[in-house]
């Protein structure tokens, strides 16, 4: 039996974008209800589960698995949730719990570079964004102040106001990279939502080096912080509420959403406005599922663009031994980058990229390699120490261009609640592959400058994925080509908005979270403009 229910605004998804949009609306006096498919979880128990996990390298292993809110999992084996249609695999990961996927992230909170939003005009590739970088600046600033972003002054992204926090202290390994690469490359401290000192009641990073799967001390801003801030502002959060249908009325306005609880009892919730913020795969999935005689292609899909233009950041990499002890593993996992190839005239020819240094402890991977090589006894210990001290890795983070054939569709296979599983159609084009090829010059030069030996390039044509799911709800002015307008409002439905990385028209070369949060704040402001300026600005609660 359905329970009638209503709110002024219903937000589908409690990730960092949905929660911060909800918070902003609540601060402006709007009653908001968030519906989250997954359960509420507790940091301490995730920390304990991680410590207890025999699969430390599997960042999903400490997170609970809920049959009613399936999420893609690949270890110890693929759970078959995200179905691969090829030609290239797209093994995206995300977490369906209260707080969403930023429970585990590296907290890289980069801005775009200004030219990223004009690559069609400047370089003849991709699409332009329906806004300028300058228009984004205040929203970036607001997002950075909420998240407590720490950054250096040489990021390449202009800003009107300073970062709320100075950069996080460099680990030893990154000090050495910076010093030794200085003749050729500026090594830049990553812009991160990680406390370099105490901020907003959260402590400074103490360097546990487990940013993924979990920051154990709350020094890194997570989606759950956003949820708690939203709740403090008056937002109601309903966990274990799996939305399976968005319902439009005869006039084309969204009237209600329907969700299942874990027992598959259906509930209907009405509202005046709706925000879809269920991530770049689940959001289009839900739109595509919500078919009716009036909307045979699903909600917000008169253009047929929902789920298309799926992008992410493929990475290839080089692993090698430096000629000195670097001891990766102290401090945060992702401390530094080289930004020199994020923009340039070359973008008309090949993908731009950021070069990213890992600082993840090498003990686990070296141990696995030594066991595989059959090394044991005293030699094992000697080798483990030598390699763990010297092994390092640099990867590219490559731009992918929007391609309508890269897309999310619905499978005929169903999950436990009878909801279709998503299908990923993905490929990596020559533009991106040429970028990867170009970056090998940088890899070689970096290894040379570090006195590298034992160079191991990732195999040609093989790319790791970075879980920056973009493009599937892309924003733009033309209703025939874009799902939402420049403020994230569905072209087809005046009271349906979309937040999250899916609305980004291009992926550029930076981790997508900060841009998505900035856009979400901008969307919330567009929905309910501030009565007086500055009423809810300045993020820190």
């Amino acid at each position, binding site marked *: 039996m359905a329970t009638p229910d209503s709110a002024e605004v219903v937000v589908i998804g409690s990730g960092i974008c949905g929660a911060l949009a909800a918070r902003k609306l609540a601060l402006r006096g709007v009653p908001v209800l968030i519906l989250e498919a997954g359960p509420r979880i507790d940091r301490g128990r995730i920390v304990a589960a991680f*410590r207890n996990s025999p699969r430390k390298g599997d960042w999903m292993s400490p997170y609970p698995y809920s049959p009613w809110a399936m999420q893609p999992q690949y270890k110890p084996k693929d759970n078959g949730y995200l179905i691969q249609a090829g030609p290239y695999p797209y093994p995206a990961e995300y977490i369906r719990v209260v707080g969403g996927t930023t429970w585990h992230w590296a907290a890289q909170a980069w801005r775009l570079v200004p030219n990223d939003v004009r690559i069609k005009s400047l370089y003849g590739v991709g699409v332009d964004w329906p806004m300028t970088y300058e228009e984004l600046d205040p929203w970036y600033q607001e997002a950075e102040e909420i998240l407590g972003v720490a950054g250096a002054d040489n990021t390449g992204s202009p800003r009107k106001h300073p970062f709320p926090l100075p950069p996080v202290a460099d680990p030893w390994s990154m000090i050495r990279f910076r010093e030794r690469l200085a003749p050729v490359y500026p090594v830049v401290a990553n812009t991160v939502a990680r406390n370099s000192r*105490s*901020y907003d*009641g*959260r*402590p400074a990073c103490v360097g546990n080096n487990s940013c993924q799967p979990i920051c154990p001390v709350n020094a890194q801003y997570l989606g759950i912080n956003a949820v708690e801030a939203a709740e403090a502002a008056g937002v109601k959060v309903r966990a274990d509420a799996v939305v399976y249908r968005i319902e439009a009325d005869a006039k084309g306005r969204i009237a209600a959403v329907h969700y299942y609880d874990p027992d598959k009892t259906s509930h209907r919730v009405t509202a005046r406005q709706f925000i879809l913020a269920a991530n770049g795969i689940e959001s289009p999935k839900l739109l595509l599922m919500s078919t009716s005689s009036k909307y045979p292609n699903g909600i917000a899909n008169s253009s047929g663009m929902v789920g298309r233009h799926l992008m992410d950041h493929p990475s290839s990499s080089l692993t090698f031994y430096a000629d000195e002890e670097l001891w990766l593993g102290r401090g945060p996992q992702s401390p530094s980058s080289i930004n020199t190839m994020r923009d340039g005239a070359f973008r008309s020819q090949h993908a731009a990229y950021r070069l990213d240094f890992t600082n993840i402890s090498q003990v686990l991977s070296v141990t696995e390699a030594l066991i595989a090589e059959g090394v044991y006894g005293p030699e094992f210990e000697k080798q483990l120490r030598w390699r763990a001290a010297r092994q390092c890795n640099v990867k590219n983070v490559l731009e992918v261009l929007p391609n309508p054939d890269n897309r999310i569709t619905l499978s005929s296979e169903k999950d436990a609640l009878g909801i279709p599983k998503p299908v990923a159609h993905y490929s990596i084009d020559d533009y991106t592959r040429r970028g990867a090829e170009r970056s090998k010059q940088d890899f070689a030069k970096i290894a040379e400058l570090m006195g590298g030996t034992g160079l191991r390039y990732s195999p040609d044509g093989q790319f790791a994925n970075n879980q920056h799911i973009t493009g599937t709800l892309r924003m733009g002015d033309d209703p025939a080509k874009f799902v939402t307008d420049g403020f994230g409002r569905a072209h087809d439905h005046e009271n349906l908005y979309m937040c999250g990385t899916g609305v980004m028209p291009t992926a550029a070369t930076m981790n997508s979270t900060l841009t998505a949060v900035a856009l979400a704040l901008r969307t919330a402001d567009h929905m309910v403009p501030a009565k007086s300026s500055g009423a809810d600005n300045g993020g820190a609660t």
Partner: protein
Amino acid sequence: MNAPACKSLVAGLAVLLLGLQTCAAAAANSAGAAEIQRGQYVATASDCVACHTGPGAKPYAGGLATMTPIGPVVSTNITPSKTDGIGNYTEQQFSRAVRKGIRADGSHLYPVMPYTEYSQLTDADVQALYAYFMHGVQPVASKPPATRLPFPFNLRILMAGWNLLFLNRHPFQPDPAQSAEWNRGAYLVEGPAHCGTCHTPRNLLMASKSSDALAGGVVGTWFAPNITPDANSGIGNWSQQDIVDYLRSGRAPGKAQAAGPMAEAIDYSLRHLTPADLRAMAVYLKTVPARHDAADTRPVDAWGSAYADLASLRGKPLPKHADDMTGPQLYDAYCASCHQDQGQGSFDGGLPPLFHNTATGRFNTDNLVMVILDGVRWHTDGSGTRMPGFSGELTDRQIATLGTYVTQHFGNPAAKVTLTQVATARAGGAPSNLILLARILLAIVLVIIAAIIVWVVLAVVRRRRRAADAPAGR
């Protein structure tokens, strides 16, 4: 001498005179500036700002509610605003308020304001303090809400009787037998820094028990420990440098770190004192009469050792219900990321070890509970949240389990954390019986007075009647 020459001489003299006058004024101003600066130091040492600044308010504008057993007492605006502050106070009125607890309008302050300790302030320091509050503080025109205590404590006149019993009447008198440094320390500890306000236990009428000076008291939900030089119960095993380090940074490495109200006292006040003054306080504290509690069989910071119970953790799933988590599981989940697997902290002590730490070695575990609930937060020194609080993440049961595990292995094994203790601390402290007690006492007094009146009236009536009944000619 011709007229113009004469004129110019007069003009010259005038200029000279004017110059001298200006010099004198400048000298007075600079003396004033020095006085104001000295007053500011006295105000800092006295930590006026901590209580007289409400949440989000300008310094000294008042509005902070301090919870007492008889209800919240709201601090007043002590900026020189003539409408809302103390701008109209004469120096004498100011002195009477600070040292005698009597406001300009003649009404009594509640001894939440530590005028009992400030009564020790020297005339010179009060004078400087007055100069600072009149000329060094920005006036703020805002009136915090008035303090409204329940009957009978709304009768401020009651405090006159209390003062009669408990108020010291004389400023600090140096002891000529002691060094100047000791005397300076004694003055600071007993007077402006008002250490005894928290660290000296109070009697039934909320007055400091001077016989037990600095032997440990209760501050709301926190415990202000024994800071006498007893080796086990107090800080007898702390070096002078340990004390100075602690007062300056909130850390005595390998011994203790400040939290709660003490962190606040250091943050706003003590860390701003000169090294010489901090040393003087340490010198004096080492000489006050030691107070020993027989239960303390070794120094508070000498308990415990590194310990881990990995065998009970690894390979075993967490219980379904959070309340069923074991001590080792809770420690692993919520503490080990900073305090490390065996409670050893970080190599440089920046993340403190939990053994050899007063936080876990004390028989009274109130502060341990409060730190787990609220964390350790500094407001002005830039360090901010030194430890996050867990009131939102941990249940009462979890904190009781965790606290007892922590004291058992890293601290004093006899110390326990109970479920009721955590619930009480979370609720902001146990309700006080003081109001009820006062009302009962008052009722008894009233009944006795009424009885006396009745008895007197009856006696008079009886006597009159007897007189009327007497034979006329007698």
